[in-house]
């Protein structure tokens, strides 16, 4: 099992994502200007501020050379996880429905939240019904979709926990096929109880590894 973590100029959670993925498999970094996915089995598009998030969050990163390969990989069924800025990039790329808007309170938020796993996908296999404790840290995390009834929700903020005004408390969604998932909370920052207070985030990475090993 080999994960590839994309590194854009301005990514800042790439190393944590690589560390998290390395707990369940091999993990390599994929440079934004390279078109080579190095034969990885799953791709993580990490958090940060890709290309400075100029113009609109995720808008420019979507056109990075590596993203052309990631889009092709996703369309062929490869598992792709977008975290925070990565979620924004995947929405801009059209791999996931909807968009992320500025938090309703306009402030940067950084706190631990509870999220409920509601839907099955490559990264939530066997986790439906579980409540996970994972941190959020963002300014632009208010999920919006024009037609929310058609969106496959996989993670929802637990009652009373919605930190940013996301539509229907949506914290994470997946595509129709269930191989591409995006979420605003940061599972890569919750992989060790000693430093994160929770290791729940590791479950998403372990899910991908388990799904692939049975494929």
């Amino acid at each position: 099992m080999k994960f590839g973590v994309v590194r854009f100029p301005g990514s800042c959670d790439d190393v944590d994502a690589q560390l998290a993925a390395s707990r369940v498999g091999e993990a390599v970094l994929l440079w934004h200007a390279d078109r080579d996915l190095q034969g990885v089995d799953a791709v993580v598009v990490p958090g940060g501020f890709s290309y400075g998030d100029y113009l609109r969050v995720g808008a420019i990163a979507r056109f990075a050379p590596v993203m052309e390969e990631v889009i092709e990989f996703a369309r062929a069924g490869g598992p792709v996880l977008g975290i925070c800025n990565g979620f924004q990039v995947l929405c801009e790329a059209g791999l996931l429905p909807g968009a992320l808007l500025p938090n309703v309170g306009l402030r940067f938020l950084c706190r631990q939240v509870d999220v409920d796993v509601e839907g099955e996908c490559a990264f939530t296999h066997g986790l439906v019904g579980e409540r996970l404790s994972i941190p959020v840290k963002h300014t632009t995390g208010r999920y919006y979709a024009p037609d929310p009834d058609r969106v496959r929700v996989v993670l929802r903020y637990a009652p009373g926990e919605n930190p940013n005004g996301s539509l229907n408390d949506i914290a994470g969604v997946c595509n129709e096929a269930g191989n591409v998932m995006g979420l605003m909370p940061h599972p890569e920052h919750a992989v060790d109880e000693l430093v994160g207070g929770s290791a729940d985030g590791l479950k998403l990475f372990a899910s991908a590894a388990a799904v692939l090993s049975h494929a």
Partner: protein
Amino acid sequence: MRARVLIRPKAGILDPQGIAVERALPALGFGGVSNVHVGRLVELDVEDAGQLDDMCRKLLANPLIEDYEIVR
């Protein structure tokens, strides 16, 4: 040619920036202000103005959440 693209949050989508500005103005003594929305202006020189609409849809705006207007 010089073109300007005005990008606005789509009607009906909560615009917290607009709300923040709308609340700040009365605090400075400016009354009678409503419907404030904050958007973005992109100015650019283009050789082929016919490409502007495509540019807006693919990059300058996100049509899911924003409306755009091309001013030539």
